């Protein structure tokens, strides 16, 4: 990351080789459009390129840091199709995971796709739906409430219980390998 912060194009090349495909997959999952996904990934890698110096304050792995930027940019992209949603300034804003206080520890889980997909089956359908609408659909809690026809408080409860349930399902699968790095 020091190399990236120093303007080393080779470091950027390496970063793309490692995470470009995953970044594109996430961007495509959120935008549903290859062209938009390409723009998101390009924007995200350039964002990482320009803001690599801020990574020093982040606690997660490089992968999580980068993919958080991808997610953030992709959500921005689909929200711009819905002009009623308040938008952050995409040039200056960064995901919250990049700007959290240092005192906030990171307990990142490291799992393969099958394990995560299995864990997703361990929470209720409505909890999974709420998380997916939020995380991959970019819907606000109010929008999720409207979409699913339940009160806002119920949506908040489903998101919380869903995340807690996922964590409970993932921890045994993680086998104690949790921790930042990478």
């Amino acid at each position, binding site marked *: 990351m020091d190399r990236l*912060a120093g*303007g080393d*194009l080779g470091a950027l090349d390496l970063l*793309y080789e490692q995470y470009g495909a995953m970044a594109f*997959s996430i961007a495509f999952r959120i935008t549903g459009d*290859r062209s938009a996904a390409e723009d998101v*990934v390009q924007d995200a890698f350039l964002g990482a390129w320009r803001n690599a110096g801020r990574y020093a304050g982040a606690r997660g792995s490089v992968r999580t840091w980068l993919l958080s930027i991808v997610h953030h940019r992709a959500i921005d992209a689909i929200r711009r199709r819905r002009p009623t949603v308040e*938008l952050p300034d995409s040039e200056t804003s960064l995901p919250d995971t990049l700007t959290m206080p240092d005192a906030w520890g990171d*307990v990142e889980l490291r799992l393969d796709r099958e394990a995560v997909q299995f864990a997703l089956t361990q929470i209720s359908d409505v909890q999974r739906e709420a998380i997916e609408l939020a995380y991959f659909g970019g819907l606000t809690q109010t929008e999720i409430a409207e979409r699913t026809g339940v009160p806002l408080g119920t949506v908040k409860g489903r998101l919380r219980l869903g995340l807690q349930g996922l964590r409970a399902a*993932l921890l045994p699968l993680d086998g104690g390998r949790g921790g930042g790095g990478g």
Partner: protein
Amino acid sequence: MAEYTFAGMTCSEAAEQAPAFVLGILSPAESDAVRRHLAECPELHAEMAELNSVVPALFVAVEPVAPPASLKDRIMAAASADLAGRGQAAVPATAPPPSRPTAEQRAADTQRPAWDFGALFRRPVWAALAAVALVAALALGAWNVQLRDQVAGLEAYRTGVVRVLDEAAKPGAQLAVLAGPNAGGPTGLAAVGADGSVAIVMRDLAPTTGTQVYEAWLIAGKEAPVPIGGFAVGGSGSAAFGTAHPALGEGVVVALTLEPAEGAKTPTLPIIALGTAHAQAS
């Protein structure tokens, strides 16, 4: 849990927003309020950390989709252009700093003079280019050139410098040092031959897009600028350009502007770079 209010948000309110916060779906104002609350209040950190630990796992669940092969080229080209536009020296890939610099050190780095001969010669990759640059610097008295870690762009630039200096060394030829109004901006050289040939080499130009071109102009005395041709610039930010125009005499000014398309008859301000051509002492 103790109840505090920070940034206009109680602990209960912040806790209620915690899942949406880690999922990144709060509005900027809501998100900022939670963030500022967390900065002051440690009560919620453990819960936030637990909820947040799940989020990266969601990335892993995504079905893989292969990106187009061209995407990487696009990103690298854009990063090269970004690097050219930063106006600061980059750390060479082969010599990473021994330790992570602090924010203060990084800030100080950006304020260092761009021209550091000592550092220049500690970098073997620059040796050939440095020799060319030094020749020009001695000939001109002062040549403020920034050397950066864009090998591709520098190679093109080096080749262009050699060509311009060769042209400037011909009898009756003049040499101009081109620079923008701001330190760290585009720099380059132009040779104006006695036969009317003009050779220009530039670096640190912002890449052109669409139909944009950099137009070169000759300005003799108080005469109107004369367009002598345009060129596009890619991601490297470097360009070498050759053209010809009937000689306009000693002391002609060579200038560059960025035009929306080829064929400009009058320059679009601001002038990107300019310099006055002078005959070289034999």
